[in-house]
C-alpha cells in the first residue's frame, strides 16, 4: 500500500516536472538556444509520459471489477504472458535491428558523417546489449 502510494507520488512528480519543462520551453522559446529547447521538450515529454502512465495504470485498475483486477495482476507473472512478452521482445529486437539500418543508409546517401556514426553506434549498442543479456541469462539459467 505504502509502495503503491510512493509510485503515485513519483508519477505525479514526473508528470508535473514534465509539464513544467515543456511550459518553460514554450515561455522561454525565444531566449534560449534551439538545442536547449529541444532537450527541455524531449525530457519534458519523456518525464510526462512516464509519470502520466504511472498515474493512469492505478486509475485504470481501480475502475476494474475485482475479477478483472485479479486477472490483470496475475497477468504480470502468468507463464503464458511471460512467454508472449519474451517472444515479442525477441521479435522486436530483430525488427529494430532492421529498422536501425534505415537511418544509416539515409545518412550514407546524404554523406552526413555525424548521423552515420550515430546510427552505426545505435546498431552496435543494440547488439552489445543483446549479447550482454544473452550472457547474463546464460549464467542464470
Amino acid at each position: 500500500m505504502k509502495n503503491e502510494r510512493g509510485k503515485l507520488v513519483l508519477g505525479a512528480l514526473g508528470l508535473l516536472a514534465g509539464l513544467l519543462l515543456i511550459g518553460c520551453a514554450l515561455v522561454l522559446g525565444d531566449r534560449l538556444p534551439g538545442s536547449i529547447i529541444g532537450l527541455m521538450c524531449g525530457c519534458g515529454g519523456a518525464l510526462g509520459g512516464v509519470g502520466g502512465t504511472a498515474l493512469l495504470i492505478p486509475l485504470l485498475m481501480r475502475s476494474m471489477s475485482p475479477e478483472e483486477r485479479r486477472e490483470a495482476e496475475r497477468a504480470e507473472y502468468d507463464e503464458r504472458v511471460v512467454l508472449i512478452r519474451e517472444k515479442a521482445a525477441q521479435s522486436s529486437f530483430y525488427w529494430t535491428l532492421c529498422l536501425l539500418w534505415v537511418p544509416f543508409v539515409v545518412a550514407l546517401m546524404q554523406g552526413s558523417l555525424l548521423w552515420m556514426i550515430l546510427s552505426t553506434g545505435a546498431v552496435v549498442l543494440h547488439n552489445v546489449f543483446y549479447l550482454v543479456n544473452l550472457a547474463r541469462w546464460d549464467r542464470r539459467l
Partner: protein
Amino acid sequence: MTNRIAQLRKERRISQAELADAVDVTRQTIISLESGRYNASLLLAHRIAKYFGLTIEEVFLFEEEEP
C-alpha cells in the same frame, strides 16, 4: 501434446475462472491450454494435475510424433 483439462473441468462442474484462480494463472491461459494452442510448463502441469487429484500423465497426453 493434448490434454483433458476441458473434459475434467466439465465433469467436475468447474469454470475456467475457478481453475485459473486455483492454479494461479489467467483465464486466457486456461482457454489456450484447452484449445491446445499453448503447452503448460512442468510446474503448471503439476499444479493442474494436483488440483484434479490426478497424475500429470492422466491429464496431459504425450504423443510421440512419427519421424
